[in-house]
């Protein structure tokens, strides 16, 4: 009897029991994790709201159904007609919060994607080449990290002028070093591993080694980071809009801007701060919950 036959027969049982690769395992953990499920449900909720905003919102975001009923001292709160009340211009607050989901999610997603792309590029350069390239890239990253994030975002947004794009780019830029550093660390760790040495010894070219082996094995924490960054990006976007650096277009309501607009009426109309504020917090919470648990599912180091 040859060895292989014995191994094939006796081990098949074992192998089947151990089957399921790392990713499947992570997925299984996530599906059983209530916190991750709640996070996912919250995110799904806001995404659906954003997509179906025209169907959900009773009014257009710039319609003023309450015009004439409004005085600076009398801004009606929630009622049967206007669930979240009216704002200072007589617009339906509920409709504006619903439409606001579009802006906040869009800013969060686009800013995170751009930031991640930039971080991946820099991180890959540094992690794949090492040496001088690494030193130069990482010094740039260090400088960027040494400037307080929001301050830098304000400066960038101010430089680019107030618009949705400048908010997105500003947030993207402050997140680039975070991603770059994370990825580079992962890649350097992978670079010294035996399977990379094995690929070199086989004669695999550098590019397939970096893109085919090192990068895919380094990417998981970056995905996790992206989920967490989405949460902070939503908050940062609100912050920048609050400071007046976002779009001023009344047709595109944005939660942060809405918060800023309520400042003067905070005493007489607290509902104007409450609903957009809750929306920001809950959306960010959803991404944070999912992101944290994703990290735990992927990386056993964080498991409790």
């Amino acid at each position, binding site marked *: *009897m040859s060895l292989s036959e014995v191994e094939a027969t006796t081990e098949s049982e074992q192998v089947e029991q151990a089957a399921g690769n790392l990713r499947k395992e992570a997925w299984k953990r996530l599906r059983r994790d209530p916190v991750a499920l709640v996070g996912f449900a919250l995110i799904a909720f806001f995404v659906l709201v954003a997509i179906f905003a025209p169907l959900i919102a009773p009014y257009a975001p710039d319609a003023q159904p309450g015009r004439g009923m409004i005085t600076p001292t009398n801004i009606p709160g929630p009622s049967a007609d206007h669930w979240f009340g009216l704002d200072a211009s007589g617009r339906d607050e509920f409709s504006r919060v619903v439409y606001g989901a579009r802006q906040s999610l869009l800013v969060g997603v686009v800013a995170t994607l751009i930031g991640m792309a930039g971080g991946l590029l820099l991180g890959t350069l540094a992690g794949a080449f090492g040496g001088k390239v690494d030193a130069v890239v990482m010094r740039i990253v260090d400088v960027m990290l040494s400037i307080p994030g929001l301050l830098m975002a304000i400066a960038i947004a101010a430089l680019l002028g107030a618009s949705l794009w400048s908010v997105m780019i500003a947030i993207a830029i402050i997140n680039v070093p975070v991603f770059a550093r994370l990825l580079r660390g992962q890649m350097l760790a992978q670079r010294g591993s035996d399977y990379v040495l094995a690929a070199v010894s086989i004669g695999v070219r550098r590019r397939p080694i970096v893109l085919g082996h090192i990068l895919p094995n380094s990417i998981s924490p970056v995905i996790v980071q992206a989920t967490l960054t989405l949460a902070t990006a939503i908050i940062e976007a609100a912050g920048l809009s609050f400071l007046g650096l976002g779009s001023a277009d009344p047709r595109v309501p944005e939660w942060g801007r809405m918060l800023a607009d309520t400042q003067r009426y905070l005493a007489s109309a607290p509902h104007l701060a409450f609903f957009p504020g809750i929306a920001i917090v809950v959306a960010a919470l959803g991404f944070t919950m999912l992101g944290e648990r994703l990290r735990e599912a992927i990386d056993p180091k964080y498991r409790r």
Partner: protein
Amino acid sequence: MTNSEPLLDVRDLSVTFTRKGGPSVRAVDGVSFTVRPGETVGLVGESGSGKSVTSLAVMGLLPRRGVQVGGQVAFDDDDLLTLPRDRMRDIRGRDIAMVFQDPMSSLNPVVPIGIQVTEVLERHQDLKGDTARAAAEDLLSRVGIPDPARRLKEYPHQLSGGMRQRALIAMALACRPRLLIADEPTTALDVTIQAQIIELLKELVQDTGASLVMITHDLGVVAGLCDTVHVMYSGRIVESAGRRELFAQPRHPYTGGLLASVPRLDAPRGAPLHPIPGSPTDVLRWSRGCAFAPRCPNRIEPCTDGPPPLESIGGRSLRCLNPLTETEEVATR
């Protein structure tokens, strides 16, 4: 010496790890053996054989949660498994000491060796200050650490692997234990250092009259050191015998297979190796039959009908329905 009362009497020891949401795993399954004063006993097995878990259970070092320990471990007149924690702590270190495979993780990295050794002396021997320090120096020199006064001031990372293991043995010996359990003490070390450590253990056993339980995967280490050898597979003892009998004529196909599969330095070149097929993970549950059956060249039909009993034949214990015969050459397929 062989007629004296056993110092340690392990009876039907079993250890089961229970996991939340998963099947429980029986790592040690009805293991019994005795250690007499001055005797050196070997527990041999590969990964998953349960040899290390056995020693941890004896020492009371298994976590309490998720682990079920059954059976008895008699030491003097105490059952170590039911002893209160503080009594167990007293026995551990004073009467029974343990040396682990990885000396680095058994030492506190931020405390100098000297303090770690004197601490043990202060705790169990009531020595103080200079007396304790002098005793520590004496211990280190006894285990062959040169310049012990200087070494005492050093941190574990400043010592080489061999020196760390010596320091650990010194700590284990600090209270003149009557039983030393060494769990793969030389596996992480180079072969010339391994020889030094084994020679040291031999000497210490001879000089102090302590008993030694040597846990190892290396049959070579056992051959030169142990009086009695227990071969473990998948949580059970499959063969026990005096070392001469065991090596001269292994009866269990697993023991025979192990001996036939390791290259011997003194074997003529070209002597073929006869590996055991499969891997140690290819086990049958003992409840369904012999765990070794899937890999066994001597397997017969009844082997998979139920667990074979451990039987005494001719001065040895054997758990096999179709053992290698007296004259049979070690399984050649």
